[in-house]
Each structure stands twice: as C-alpha cells, then as structure tokens.
C-alpha cells in the first residue's frame, strides 16, 4: 500500500512547509513583537485623591488590643477564642474570624520589642485585585479594596498574590467567604470612622485621607529625627504604595512588612501578561497566521484523503 506524506525521518523541512511559509510566520512573529513592545509603558496607578487609610505608629501603641475586639464587633465576626478554650478572644494570626490583629515582635535577646497592627494595607495597586478573575476584589470608593461576594468563585489566588498575607478564607464553610479588612466601609456613610481608630485610647492608629496621614507621618519624623527607622514611612512607596502606612522604631522587616522595593506586585505580574493580551493584538495575529496555514494544510489533506480512499476504500480518519 502507498502511504501519503513525506518519507519518515526526512528532516526538519518536510515537503509542503515552504520557505514562504517560514517567512510568513517570521513576519507575523515580528509584527506581534512590535505590537507587543509599543505600549510597553504599563499604566502607573496612583492613589485616588480621596484615598482613605490608616497611620499606625509603633512608638505609641500600648498593645491593649481594644482595636481587635472593636473590629470583631463592628464586622459581626465570631471572636476567635480557640486558644483560650472558649473564654477570651485570642487570635494568633489574621484568620477567617479576625480582620485586625495586634502582634508582638521581640528580638531574641529581648532588647528590642514592638507591637504591630496588621490588617489589609489597602494597596494603591493591589495584587489581589489584579489576580482576581471576576473582579470580586477591586478598588472601590476612597481606594478601599472591596470584596464582592457574588463575583467570588473562591479560587484563593488573592491569598497567593497578596504580599502581606492578608486575605483569609473560610476553610470550613459551605459557601466560604474571603475575609479581610475593608476599612469599615459600612460605617463610613454613617459618619463613623473605622472601629479600630475610633476605639484606640492612645491614637496609635489614626484614620484619615492618605495624603493627610503621610503629611502627619513626615511631621512626626521631622519633629523627632532618628526616632523612627530610616526616617521613613512604610507604604508611601513600598510595593507601589499602600493606603495604610506605618511608622516604626524597629526595622519594618521585623514587623513582617516585606522590604521588596517600590514596584507593586500587580505591576510586576502584569508586565508580560498585560502586554501579550493588550487589545488581544498578539493572539489575533497568531490566530490569523495559524488559520491561514491550517486552511492550506487541510485542503491538501482532503485531496490526499480522497486519493487514498479511492485506492484503499478506507474512509479518512481525522
């Protein structure tokens, strides 16, 4: 019987794959590269003018945890009493019952210590919102990162992408939610501030517009040079900027704040992906090239198949 197709092992350039085809592929590839490099300046996202946030100052906090309890009440969460055997609220970390926590850092020799308040940082350019497939997490009014339950599929890529390990998932629930601080956005329309800042007895954490908070932070640094680590406000630039900002007397890294530069995770993550899919230009060009080649190949194949069938009586198998 005769076999259609080229001889086996006939080398890379099989019959029918002409130089012109190679040229066409090359041309569409370079067009794609060009289209990909033109809009290379990925959009820089700045904080909205009315961005709200928090300023937490480790030198002021007395570790009373009033903010932890107030947060639980204000957000209708079940207090995490597991560690105390059901008596007191004693969360050890942010979890699906705890959107806000006070933790203690102490150096091994005990010489250096600091309280640390953790909650969602309300990133200027949030990685979670960039990773979220159906915009369940997105920047809402005042730049607050909001979670919308009807759009969440529970994929947990917000947890994978968040550089601060903030979003938490209700592992044991039937219809699990993503739990994270939303700056008490349900309280704001009533003229209330977030529960944590409202209850703080020493104003270690204060609420306000991000711009005002940064101004206040720099005022404190200028008034007390050398008091704060690196005379720097964490979150002003870090990871693209955050709306919750920190002043600390110990290195930020000791408090669990990652020192990984000023580029946002979202920006880093979208560098290649964002360019390839910008306006679907690259996929469209590749599809056009593939469809063009496939049409020629398929027509040739059909011709061969008819010949074969007349010779062997066997139907072509696609």
């Amino acid at each position, binding site marked *: 019987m005769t076999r259609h197709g080229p001889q086996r092992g006939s080398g890379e350039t099989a019959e029918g794959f002409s130089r012109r085809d190679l040229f066409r592929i090359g041309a569409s590839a370079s067009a794609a590269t060009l289209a990909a490099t033109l809009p290379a300046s990925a959009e820089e996202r700045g904080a909205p003018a009315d961005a709200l946030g928090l300023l937490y100052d480790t030198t002021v906090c007395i570790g009373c945890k009033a903010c932890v309890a107030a947060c639980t009440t204000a957000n209708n969460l079940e207090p995490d009493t597991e560690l105390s055997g059901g008596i007191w609220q004693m969360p050890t970390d942010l979890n699906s019952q705890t959107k806000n926590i006070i933790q203690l850092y102490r150096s091994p020799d005990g010489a250096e210590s600091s309280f640390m308040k953790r909650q969602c940082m309300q990133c200027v350019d949030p990685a979670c919102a960039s*990773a979220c497939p*159906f915009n369940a997490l997105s920047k809402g009014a005042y730049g607050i990162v909001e979670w919308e339950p009807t759009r969440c599929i529970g994929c947990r890529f917000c947890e994978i992408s968040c550089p601060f390990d903030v979003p938490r998932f209700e*592992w044991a629930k039937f219809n699990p939610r993503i739990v994270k601080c939303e700056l008490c956005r349900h309280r704001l329309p009533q003229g209330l501030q977030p529960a944590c800042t409202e209850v703080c007895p020493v104003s270690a954490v204060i609420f306000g517009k991000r711009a005002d908070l940064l101004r206040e932070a720099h005022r404190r640094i200028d008034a007390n040079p050398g008091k704060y680590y690196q005379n720097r406000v964490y979150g002003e630039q870090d990871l693209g900027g955050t709306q919750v900002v920190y002043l600390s007397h110990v290195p930020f890294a000791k408090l669990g704040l990652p020192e990984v530069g000023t580029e946002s995770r979202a920006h880093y993550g979208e560098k290649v992906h964002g360019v390839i899919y910008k306006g679907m230009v690259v996929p469209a060009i590749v599809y056009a090239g593939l469809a063009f080649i496939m049409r020629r190949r398929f027509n040739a194949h059909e011709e061969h198949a008819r010949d074969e069938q007349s010779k062997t009586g066997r139907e072509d198998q696609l």
Partner: protein
Amino acid sequence: MKTAHWNYAVRTDRPLITAPLLFFSALALIALALSAWRLFGGLAFTGMNDDYAIGVWKTFNVMTLTALGSSALAAGLTTWVFNQRQLHVVMRTALTSSILFYGTGMFALGFDVGRPWNFYHVILPWNWNLHSALLEVSVCMTAYVALFLLYENLPTVLPARWFARIKPLYPYMVAAAFLLPAMHQSSLGSLMVIAGTKVHPLWQTQMLPAFYLIQAIVCGFASLILILMISCLAFHRPLDIPIMATLARFMAWGSLVFVVLRYADIVIRGELSTAFTDGWYAVLFQGENLFVLIPALVLLGARRRSIPRVLFVAAAATAIGGLVYRFSPTTLAFRYGRASIYFPSIGELLMCVGYISLAIALFILAVRRFAILPDRISD
C-alpha cells in the same frame, strides 16, 4: 515488541471488563464519592491553609497534568503546521488523552474552588478582569475543552456523514485549538508571577509563561510516546518505530530549548550561583533540568531513538522532569525557607489520584468503543 507501520486507527477487541479497568474505576468512584461529600463539608479536611492556599487539585491535577494533556497541541502543531503528515495516525490518541486529562482536571477544579456556583461569570465578559492571568486560564481553558478540543474529538465518535456538516469549519477550529492552549498553558505560568517573592528566585521569573508553554509541548510529546507504548503493550499492538522516533526528535529539540532558556534566564537574572549553592533548591533546579536534558541528548542520536526501551525510559524521564518543573513554582519552591510546608491530606490525595484514575478508566473504555489507537491493517 512487534513493529509495523501504522496506517489506521482501530478499536481494540479486548474484553470490556478487565482488571485494570475495575481498579481505576474503583479509585475514580472513591474520588467521586469524596467530591460529593466535600461539597457540603467545606475544604477544612484538606492540607491547605491560608499560607498554602492552593493544593494538589489545582497545582497537580490542573497546573501540572494538563502538560501531559497537551499532546493534542504538541502533536497537532507537528502534524499540521510542521506538515508531518505521517503523524495523522496518532492524532486520535493524542486528542482523546488530551480531552480526558483536561476534562478531569477541570472537574477537579470544580471541587477545589470554594464558590463554584459563581463560575457563571466566565460567560459574562463584562465581569472579566482582563489583568488577571487566572481569568485568561478560566475563559480560555473552558472554551478550549468545551468547544475546540471537543470539536476535534468529534470525528472519533460521530459517524463521518454527521461530521461532514461541520467539517468545513475544521481548519478554523483547529487553528483555535492551537492558539488557546498556547494561551492558557503560558498563563498557567503567569499565575505564579504575581506571587512575587513568595516563589524561590530560581523559579520566579518573567519567563514563567514561556517555560510553562514549552514544558507543555515537551510533556505533550512525552505523554503521547508513553501512552502509545503502554497501549501497544496492553492491547498487543505493533509499534511504529519511525513515528515514535519522529515524536522523540521533536520532544528532544523542545527539551533543549527549555534547558538553554532556563540557564540563560538565571544567568541574566544573576541567580547562577544560587543554582549551585542553595541546598535542596539547587538540587531540585538541577534535577529538573537534567531529567529533561539527558534524555534529549540521548534521543538526538537517530539510532538510539529507534530502540523502544531507550525511547520509553527517555520519555518517562522527560515527563518526570517536566512535571516536577511545573509543580515547583506552586508547591515545592513556594514560600521557601519556611518551617511549615503544605502536604495534602489523605482525602485530598485520594481525590487527586481518583481524578487521574477517572481519565485512565475513560481512556480504556474509549479505545474499546471507538477507533482511537493506531494499528497496521492490510489493504
């Protein structure tokens, strides 16, 4: 092992109920029962937690195993675009195994996500977040399996005169069936780019999408070689050495591209010394590359790739290297340097294995019922 030139896909005439089929069906049934139970019980029984928020169903069944399910892409591109027409005879094997790997992977995904009932947004483009690599995977993989890969499999299961009505679409559907997996296989790599410094620097690179795509194609060839060889042994078919050698040659070149780009990537990013000094991670990195590189070098010899034993071992090693590579960024090299690790629970593992068994059981049934596996028939 007998050898012959394959010229037609023929269904097997083995008895329907065999020991392997019962074995894999049993494992699949356990997984299905656990899946139904999991729907009501939440995900607390898994080894996942807020630090390791994705587990084996995502990282292995989908992000790793769809590489083995990429033989439709790898063999399809070779057959059609690179015009290796002698490979047409193995395309049905590739297409069937691909839709089963993908299908069971997506099935696993349905039980991995916490709120699967909200997945309907995938058909509402105005709710899409176009910045999200996961959106790209969700939309693109769903469309690929439900539309294009399904269409490609129709000639296998439908009478020819039924398929004739939609046959004029063939080149355009197949072109999409090449583009879409190229898109979502690369996006599977993009998923971990946004995890930034949580992924070990030997793996965290803007090249992740390219590496995932290349590894999908390499593993696609490897899985087709392995499936054909195992099927020929199991169903007493002759082996077509020249066809296997062609697949092996393409696989070897893909492997070389992967290894060269990988070392170039760490040199450019200044992580070369890490690849030799960072303990277990250095071993893992070099291991992934050597498992791919050594078989490639062996298979470059035309005589060596014609020896079934060599071919089998080389394809198996390549698949292991490729699969471990695709598993590392999400799991083995994720949140490196921590005391805690993620390890799946028994139930989670049973479901993971069960979904794979489901694919195998369905494959055994499919080759029994339809003309899929290649054979030599006389004129």
